[in-house]
Every structure is written in C-alpha cells, then in structure tokens.
C-alpha cells in the first residue's frame, strides 16, 4: 500500500486516489469500529498519542482505533507531566517518542509542529491538529460523512460556516473538497474570513467558491452545512473575540426551506452554533460524523503500519 510508513501532516500530502482508498478502507472498518468484528491489524504495535492541546474526540477516537485493532497506546494528554514543562524542545520530545513507538499522533498549539515532528521522527507522524493550520484526519472523516450521506463527493454544495480564519478543520477540508470538485459557499463574519493565501491556493486549484454572509441564503440550495466553533483560544485578544462571538447560529428557522436531505456537520465541540433542537431532526449528522472518526483512523493507521511491515 502506498501509504506505508508515510507522514500525514497536511491534507496536501494525500492525492484524490489515496483519499478515496482510505475512505473505501474505512467503510470496511465500520463493523470493527462498532465492536462487531475483531481485528488484529495493529497487533504488537505501539502508537504514541501526544496531545499538547485539549482534545476529547480526536485523542479518544485514535486510541479506540488502535485498541480495536489490537495495538497499544502511549499517551501524553497533559503537557504538565512531561519534560517539556522543564523546557525540553518538541524536537527532542519527538525524537524520544519515535524510539518508543511505531507511529506518533501529535496535536500541538503551534502551526507547523507536525512538520517539525515528521522531520525529527524516523517513525510516521500523523498530524492531529497543529494550531490554526491543518487537521487532515478530521477532513477525511468529514468527507466520509458526506460520502455516506450522498454516495459521492463531486458536485456537492457545501456551506462552510463560521470561523474560517482560525478553524484548522476548514483549512484541511476546503483543500480536499476542491480536489473532489465540490462547490463551496463561504459564510463567515468578515473578521473570520478564510486566510487570503489559502483562498488563493483554492482558486489556483480551480475550486468553485462563492461567498454568502447571510446564512439563510447560503443554506438554501446546499447539501451540507459544515458548522465550526469560533476558536476563542486562538484570538490575540478578548475584545476581538467578543466582536464576533455569537454572530451565527444554525437553528430550525435557518433550515426552513432547506433541502430535505441537507446534512449539518460539525467537528465538535459546539459552543452554541448548532441549536440542540437540530439534534432531533434528520439533518443532524454530527454525532454520526464523530463516530466515523474511529473507522477512518483505523483505516489510516493500518495503511501506514501494515501487518508484517516491521517495527
């Protein structure tokens, strides 16, 4: 398999064919993720999950994926218990982790941390979020949720709503959607618009993109509304955050007149952007999306560390 031993730092590291291959593989992993079928695909493997930023779903779904496949995890979930507290560099920490494990899953608050880790490590590194930059495995499971609902990715109309500036999941997802020929409608407060250089890159890829700040109008012909939380922790100051806080919310009135098959996705956690009343409608797909994290990460890990590929 072409992914054997590879680093996954950015969604740019994966071709359209490779993404499709991972999604196909992930579909076959669903019964394993549900605990209905056993697998020993990662038996004898140790995967380090090093999270230097808070996480619920990403870390737990990676660890569930490893354990369902018969592997074991070495976990750092609190920087306070590591030597980084004593001033150890990330570079040295990763060098050490790569000598204790077969692969490293890294989340870090600084953009570019995963690329540095990939340079430092002689084992594959998977980026589980680097600051406001990239979150490629989230993009994979976002794509899987869309593909599961519509059977295809090409030609879908996807509204990207909310914090497009600091939201790393949108940065990865938009590049992937461009590859698959989906149409994107950007709906964000001006202060939270997609970074200019990413927008330029998407345009250069020939992505079909429009902007519609008025949410109800953006949603009208859409197949998917991808909602993001305002990334409060990445704002340089509280005042800037307050100026945009609570500026959008998806509730029943927003979805009035939307297509019946429209799905609402959210990488979670949510902080008021999706009204809980949506949970009880057929539009709500975000909990299914959160589940799909496990089979997608199983597919990725077992492709990067195929059986018999050595320690």
């Amino acid at each position, binding site marked *: 398999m072409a992914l054997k031993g590879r680093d996954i730092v*950015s969604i740019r590291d994966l071709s359209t064919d490779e993404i499709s291959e991972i999604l196909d593989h992930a579909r076959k992993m669903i019964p394993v993720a549900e605990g209905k079928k056993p697998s020993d695909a990662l038996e004898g493997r140790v995967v380090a999950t090093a999270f230097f930023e808070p996480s619920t779903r990403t870390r737990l779904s990676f660890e569930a994926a490893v354990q369902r496949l018969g592997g074991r995890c070495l976990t750092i979930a609190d920087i306070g218990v590591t030597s980084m507290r004593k001033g150890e*560099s*990330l*570079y*040295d920490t990763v060098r050490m982790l790569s000598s204790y494990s077969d692969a490293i899953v890294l989340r*870090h*608050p*600084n*953009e*570019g*941390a995963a*690329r*540095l880790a990939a*340079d430092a490590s002689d084992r594959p590194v998977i980026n589980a979020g*680097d*600051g*406001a*930059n*990239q979150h490629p495995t989230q993009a994979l499971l976002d794509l899987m949720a869309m593909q599961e609902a519509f059977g295809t990715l090409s030609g879908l109309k996807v509204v990207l709503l909310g914090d497009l500036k600091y939201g790393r999941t949108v940065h990865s997802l938009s590049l992937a959607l461009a590859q698959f020929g989906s149409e994107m409608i950007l709906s964000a407060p001006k202060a939270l618009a997609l970074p200019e*250089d990413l927008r*330029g890159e998407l345009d250069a890829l020939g992505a079909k993109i429009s902007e519609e700040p008025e949410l109800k109008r953006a949603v009208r012909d859409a197949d998917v509304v991808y909602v993001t939380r305002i990334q409060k922790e990445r704002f340089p100051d509280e005042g800037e955050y307050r100026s945009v806080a609570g500026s959008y919310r998806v509730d029943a009135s927003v979805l009035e007149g939307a297509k019946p098959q429209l799905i609402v996705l959210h990488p979670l956690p949510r902080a008021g952007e999706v009204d809980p009343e949506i949970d009880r409608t057929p539009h709500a797909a975000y909990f299914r999306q959160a589940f799909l994290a496990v089979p997608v990460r199983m597919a990725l890990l077992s492709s990067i560390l195929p059986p018999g590929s050595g320690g």
Partner: protein
Amino acid sequence: MVRELRITPIRNGTVIDHITNGLALDVLRIIGVRDLDKDSTVSIALHVRSGKIGWKDIVKVENMELSPRKVNAIALITPSATISIIRDHQVREKRSVDLPEHVTGVVRCPNINCISNQGEPIESDFRVVRRRPVVLRCTYCDRQVTDFLKHLA
C-alpha cells in the same frame, strides 16, 4: 579644479552589481557590514544608469566573499543582481544570483505562532512557490511570504 571622487577598484573582494534601484542598503544589511574586517572599504553607488535594467545600485566590499546563504538572501530581494569575485584586481568569477527551491535560515516566518519561531533547534525553511514575483511558503506552517525585507533573519 573640481575633483571627482570615484569608486576605486578593489584588490580582493566582491562586487554586487545590477541591484534593483534603491535596494543597496538592504543588500548591505544582508551582507552584515558590521562584521567586516575594520580595514575593508565598502563602496556603494546609488541610482546608476544601466543598459540592462534602467537604473541600478552597486555595492563593492573589500576582503569578503559571500556565503551561499547570503547569496540566496540577495536573490530573494533583487533577482537581477550579479556577483563578481575579485582576486588580485581580476574578476575570477561572475555569476547571476540564483534562487534555489528551498530557502533556509534566510527569512523568519511572519507567523509568530509558527513552530519555527518557538526556539526549537531548527532553522526557518521556505519553499519557493513562485519565482516572478517571488512567493515563499513556510515549510512548517504553510504561511506565504512576499515581503521578505521585513522578515530577513
């Protein structure tokens, strides 16, 4: 009688010619004239007529040859520049500056949250994604940079 002060030829050193008009002082910043031998003469000619690029600047530095890293930095800000190495009053080597595919340790990433700005034991590194005009992309955080002068390391 009017005495004209001209730039005297140098015995050993480097001549950087065809610098984009107005950028000679930035080239000096890259060269790091403060680190030079105290007996070295540095000559600058500003706004000189050039058949090739209209108007140009010229910098001559005695007793110094440029490291590849400094040549890369000059290539970033003035890709039209040429560099001549002078030994015993003779031009021993003359070449245009050439921008490589990666520029390492020359430019600081403008993203303060980039891992390359956090005191890690690494050098800044950028891929050249466009040559005319030059656009760099940080190898670590993917941020694009076009205003190199503000971010020279």
